C-alpha cells in the first residue's frame, strides 16, 4: 500500500479525470455551451451580471439532471466577466460590476482605434485568470479551511482600508479632490439601513413623510450598478455627443488587432499572474465582495509597472491587470461556497441556491463525500472559460467596427440601453432619477478633475468599513489585534499603497507644473461645485445627528472629513492664481473643438426619455425617443429611424417576456388599460 498522502493524491487524480470525462461527454457539454452562450449575452448587456443571469436560469435548473444543471450554471457564471469587457471597451459602460476598472484604459484605447487590441488582450487575460482560479480551487479546496478562518473581522477591516488606500494611486492631480470624491462615495453608501443600528439614514425622512416614495426608495439603499453606470457612462456619452464624432478618433482601425492583444498578454505574463493571484485570494475571503477587486488590481498594475504615465489614457496594462483578476475571483469565491456554504460573491450566492435546487447542498461534508461533484464544478469552470474566450476573441474584430460609426447615430440605442440597465437594478423609478442626479454630478466631477474612481471605491467599501470597524472593536482589544500576523501584514501593504500614491501624485505635480494646459479657467463654476459638495457634507452631519451612536458615528465622521477637505480645496483655490492646477477644467480643452454642442442640451437629450416616460410610460417613450433622436438630431432617413425604433420595441418586449419584468407606467397607463407590454 502506498503512503497515505500518495494514496490520497491518487484518489484525487482519479476523481479529477473522471469528472473531466463526464463534462466533455454527453449532454452536459451541450448544457455547458448553452450556459456559456447565455452568459456571454448577459455579460454584454450593461446592468445584467452573473447574479441576474443565474437567477434567470434557476427555474430551468429545477428538475434537471444535476451534472447538466451544474454545467449550465457554471458555464454562465464563468464567462460573464469575460464578455462584459465588450461594452466597457467599446462604449465606456461596464457590462457588469467586474468590468468597472477595465473602462479606465480600455475605452481610451478604443478612442485611439485600438479596440480590437484591447479586447483580445482582455480576453486572453481573462482566460488565464479563469484557468488560474480553477487550478487554485483544485489545489486548495481540501486545505483552505484554516486560510479562510484566519481572516477575521479585523483582517476584513484592514482589507477594506487597503481598498480605500488605493484611491491615492488612482486619483487625479489633486489628492484632496480625490478624497472629497471618496467621502461622497461613502456618504452615498450610507444611504439606507445602517448595518449596526438598523436605522434608516439619509433618506429625507427628517423632512418628508416616511411613506413618501422618495423616502421608501432611498431607504432601500442605492444599488451598485446604478452608481457604476451613471458615474462612468453618463459623462462619457454626454462628451461624445457634444463633439459629434465616432468613438474612435481614427476612421481606420489598426490592422491585426487581436494578434497584437495576444502579444501584449504574453509580454505582461507576470502582471497577469500577480493579478490573477490577487483576484483569487480576495475572492476566497467571503465578506469583502468582488466589487473592489478590480480596483485593487488596477492600482497594483499601475504602481508596479514601469512608465505608468499613460495609465488612464490608454495603457494596455490597465486592461490586462483588472481583467485577469475579475475572472480569477470566481474560482476563489467558489471555495468558501463549497466548503462552508458561505458564498464569496453575488454570483456564487445564486449558484448555491441553484445547487440546492439540484439536490446538491454545498457544505463542509461535500469535500469528503461528493468530491466528484466539486471536480465537475472545477472542470466546468475551466472548459467554459476556454469556450468563452474563443468566442469572444473571434468576435472582437468585427464588433470593434462599431467604434468607427458616428456617435450621434449610436447614442439613442446606448441611452436606451443605459436607462434600461439602470432601471433593471431594482426596477424602480427612483433608480432612473437618482442615476440622473449622480450622472450630472459626474459630468462636473470629470470636468473639474474630481476622481470618479475614488467615489466608486468609497461607495463600494463604505458598508464594509463601517460594519467591520464596529465589529472589530467589539470582538477584539487592541493588544489582541496587534498580535494577528495577517492583520499586521495588511497594515504594511496599506501603508505601502499610500506611500506609492503620494509618489505618483508628486510625479504628476512635476508634470503639471512644467506644462500649463490650464488657461483662462473660469473659477465661478468651480466655486459653485465646491460649495454644493460642502453643503452635502454639512447636510449629512445634520440629518444623521439624531440617530443612535452606532448609526451616526460613521456618516458624521465621513461628513466632517469631507467638509475639511472641501475647505482645504477652497483655501487652495483662494490663494492660487487662476492658472494653477486646482482650477483644472476639462472644458477648456474641449472648447478648442469648434463644433461643440452645448453641455446642458446634451444632458437634456440624455434624460428626455424620462420626462416622456412620465406621460406615456417607459416602454412607449423609449421607442419614440429613438425615432425622434435619429430623425431630428442625427438626421437619419425616416425609414432608418422607423425601423430602428421598432427594433428597440421588439427587443424590449423580448426582454420583458423572458425576464418577467414590467416597465414603469406613465400617466397614460393610469387612465387607459393597455395590452402587454405597453401596460
Amino acid at each position, binding site marked *: 500500500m502506498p503512503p497515505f498522502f500518495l494514496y490520497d493524491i491518487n484518489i484525487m487524480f482519479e476523481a479529477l479525470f473522471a469528472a473531466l470525462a463526464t463534462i466533455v461527454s454527453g449532454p452536459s457539454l451541450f448544457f455547458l455551451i448553452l450556459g456559456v452562450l447565455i452568459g456571454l449575452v448577459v455579460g454584454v448587456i450593461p446592468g445584467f451580471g452573473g*447574479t*441576474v443571469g*443565474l*437567477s434567470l436560469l*434557476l*427555474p430551468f435548473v*429545477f*428538475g434537471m439532471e444535476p451534472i447538466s444543471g451544474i454545467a449550465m450554471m457554471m458555464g454562465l457564471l464563468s464567462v460573464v466577466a469575460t464578455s462584459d469587457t465588450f461594452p466597457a471597451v467599446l462604449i465606456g459602460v461596464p457590462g457588469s460590476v467586474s468590468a468597472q476598472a477595465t473602462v479606465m484604459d480600455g475605452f481610451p484605447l478604443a478612442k485611439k482605434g485600438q479596440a480590437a487590441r484591447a479586447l483580445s488582450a482582455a480576453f486572453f487575460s481573462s482566460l488565464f485568470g479563469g484557468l488560474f482560479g480553477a487550478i487554485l480551487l483544485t489545489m486548495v479546496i481540501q486545505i483552505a479551511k484554516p486560510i479562510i*478562518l484566519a*481572516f*477575521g*473581522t479585523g483582517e476584513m477591516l484592514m482589507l477594506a482600508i487597503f481598498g480605500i488606500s488605493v484611491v491615492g494611486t488612482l486619483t487625479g492631480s489633486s489628492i484632496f479632490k480625490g478624497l472629497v470624491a471618496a467621502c461622497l462615495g461613502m456618504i452615498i453608501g450610507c444611504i439606507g*439601513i445602517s*448595518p*449596526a*443600528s*438598523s436605522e434608516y439614514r439619509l433618506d429625507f425622512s427628517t423632512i418628508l413623510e*416616511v*411613506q413618501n416614495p422618495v423616502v*421608501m*426608495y432611498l*431607504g*432601500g*439603499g442605492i444599488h451598485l450598478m446604478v452608481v457604476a453606470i451613471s458615474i462612468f457612462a453618463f459623462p462619457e456619452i454626454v462628451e461624445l455627443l457634444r463633439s459629434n464624432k465616432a468613438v474612435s478618433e481614427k476612421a481606420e482601425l489598426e490592422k491585426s488587432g487581436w494578434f497584437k492583444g495576444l502579444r501584449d498578454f504574453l509580454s505582461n505574463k507576470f502582471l497577469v499572474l500577480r493579478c490573477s493571484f490577487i483576484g483569487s485570494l480576495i475572492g476566497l475571503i*467571503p*465578506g469583502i465582495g468582488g466589487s473592489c477587486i478590480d480596483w485593487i488590481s488596477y492600482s497594483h498594475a499601475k504602481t508596479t509597472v514601469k512608465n505608468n504615465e499613460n495609465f488612464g489614457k490608454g495603457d494596455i496594462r490597465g486592461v490586462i491587470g483588472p481583467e485577469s483578476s475579475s475572472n480569477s475571483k470566481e474560482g476563489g469565491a467558489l471555495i468558501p461556497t463549497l466548503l*462552508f*456554504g*458561505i*458564498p464569496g460573491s453575488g454570483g456564487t*450566492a*445564486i*449558484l*448555491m*441556491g*441553484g445547487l*440546492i*435546487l439540484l*439536490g446538491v*447542498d454545498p*457544505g*463542509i*461534508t461535500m469535500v469528503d463525500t461528493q468530491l466528484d461533484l466539486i471536480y465537475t464544478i472545477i472542470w466546468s469552470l475551466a472548459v467554459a472559460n476556454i469556450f468563452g474566450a474563443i468566442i469572444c476573441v473571434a468576435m472582437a474584430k468585427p464588433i470593434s467596427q462599431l467604434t468607427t460609426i458616428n456617435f450621434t447615430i449610436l447614442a439613442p440605442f446606448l441611452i436606451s440601453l443605459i436607462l434600461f440597465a439602470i432601471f433593471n437594478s*431594482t*426596477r*424602480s423609478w*427612483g433608480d432612473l432619477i437618482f442615476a440622473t442626479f449622480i450622472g450630472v454630478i459626474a459630468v462636473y466631477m470629470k470636468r473639474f478633475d474630481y476622481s470618479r474612481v475614488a467615489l466608486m471605491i468609497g461607495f463600494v467599501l463604505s458598508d464594509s468599513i*463601517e*460594519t467591520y470597524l*464596529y*465589529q472589530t472593536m*467589539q*470582538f477584539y482589544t487592541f493588544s489582541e489585534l496587534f498580535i494577528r500576523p495577517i492583520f499586521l501584514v495588511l497594515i504594511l501593504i496599506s501603508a505601502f499603497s499610500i506611500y506609492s500614491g503620494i509618489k505618483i501624485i508628486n510625479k504628476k505635480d512635476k508634470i503639471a507644473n512644467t506644462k500649463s494646459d490650464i488657461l483662462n479657467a473660469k473659477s465661478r463654476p468651480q466655486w459653485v461645485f465646491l460649495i454644493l459638495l460642502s453643503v452635502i457634507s454639512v447636510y449629512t452631519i445634520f440629518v444623521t445627528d439624531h440617530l443612535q451612536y*452606532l448609526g451616526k458615528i460613521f456618516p458624521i465622521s465621513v461628513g466632517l472629513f469631507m467638509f475639511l477637505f472641501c475647505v482645504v480645496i477652497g483655501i487652495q483655490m483662494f490663494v492660487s492664481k487662476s492658472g494653477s492646477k486646482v482650477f483644472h477644467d476639462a472644458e477648456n480643452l474641449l472648447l478648442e473643438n469648434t463644433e461643440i454642442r452645448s453641455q446642458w442640451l446634451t444632458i437634456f437629450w440624455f434624460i428626455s426619455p424620462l420626462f416622456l416616460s412620465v406621460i406615456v410610460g417607459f416602454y412607449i417613450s423609449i421607442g419614440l425617443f429613438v425615432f425622434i433622436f435619429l430623425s431630428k438630431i442625427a438626421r437619419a432617413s425616416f425609414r432608418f429611424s422607423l425601423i430602428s425604433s421598432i427594433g428597440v420595441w421588439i427587443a424590449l418586449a423580448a426582454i420583458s417576456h423572458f425576464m*418577467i419584468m414590467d416597465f414603469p407606467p406613465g400617466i397614460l397607463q393610469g387612465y387607459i388599460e393597455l395590452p402587454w407590454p405597453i401596460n
Partner: protein
Amino acid sequence: MLKKILAVLAASLFSVTAALAVDYTGKTVTMWIPFKAGGGSDTWARAIGPAFSANLPGNPTVVVKNVTDGKAIGASNKYFAEHGKDKDGMVVFGTSGSVQMPFIFKDERVRYNYKNMVPIFASGTGGVVYVRKEMGVTDIIKDFDKFKSSKLVYGSQGKTSLDAVPILAFDMMGVDVNVVYGMKGRKAGRAAILRGETTVDYQTTASYLKHVRPLVEKGEMVPIMTWGAPVGGKVERDPNFPDLPAFPEVYEAVTGNKFKGTEAKSWTALFYAGFATQKYVMLPKSAKKDVVKAWQSAAAAIVNDPAAMKVLNKKLGKYDQVTGSKALKSALKKATSIDSKSEKFLQSWKDTK
C-alpha cells in the same frame, strides 16, 4: 322568438358558469417574492412553484417574480398597492419572517396588512442554538451557571429582524450576551462562530443539519437547545431534535418561573412569525371565493406530492406544511397579531440597549 330567447339565456347561463369555474389554462400565474433571487424565500418559492402549476386547474405556468424595490417592506407595500384588490389570483404573494417582523414591530414604513390577506399555504421551520466546544457546556440546564458566566458573544442582523427571537430569549433567561450587530444574514453569523469571534449562534434547521451537525460530530460545536415546534397550541420540543430541550422548557428550568406572562407571550408571537409558520403563500382578501378554493385545494394536493415535499423538507427541515382554511387562519393570526400589552412591551424592549 322564444327559441331565440332561450338560446340567449342558455348561452349567458353557460358563460356565467364558465366564468365561475376557475381555469388557468394557458395562463401565467406570478408569485410575487419580495426578496432577491437565490435567497431562502426565493428557493422556497421556486420549489413550490412547479408544484402549484401541477395542481392548479388548467396547469398554468407559475413564474417567480423577485421584487426588491425598497427591500422587503417596500416590495410588500408595492404588492398591496398594485394587486391588493385583485380578484383573479393571477398574482400571489409570498412572504417570510422578514416581512412579518416589521409588521409586528409596527415599523412606520409598513403599508401592508395581514388582515387583508387570505393564507393559502404556510411552511414552518425551527432553529437550533449551539455553542463552541471550548465553553464546556453540554446541557444548558445542568451547566447553566457555566453558560451564564462564560464569555457570550452573538453575531446578529438587528434587533427587529428574526434575531429578535434569540435576543429576547437571552434576555428572558437573564444571561448577559454581548450582541454584535451588522451581520449580513445567518451565514455571516455562522462564519463568525467558526472563526471563534462569537461563541453562541443559532441556525435554522436545514442549515443546522447541513452545516453545523458535521462540526458537532467532529467535536467543534455543541447544540444546547432548539426554539421548539408548535404542538397543539403550545411550543414543545422540536420533533427533529427530540433530545434537545426547547426554549420554553429551558426558561422554566433555569428561572423557576412558569412560561407565562407578557414576555413569554411576546416571545411566542415572534417565534410564530419567524419560525413556526415562517413562509406564506397568500392572496388578497378581494380574491373570488372560487379562486381561493382552487388555490387552497392545490396547496392541499402539494402536501400529498412526495416529490415536492422532498425539496421542501430539504429546504426547511421536516416541519408541518400548513394547508386548509381553518388551520391557516389560526396560524396566520398567531404569526401576525399580538395583544396590546405584548406590543407595548416589544416596543420598549426594542429601544433598550
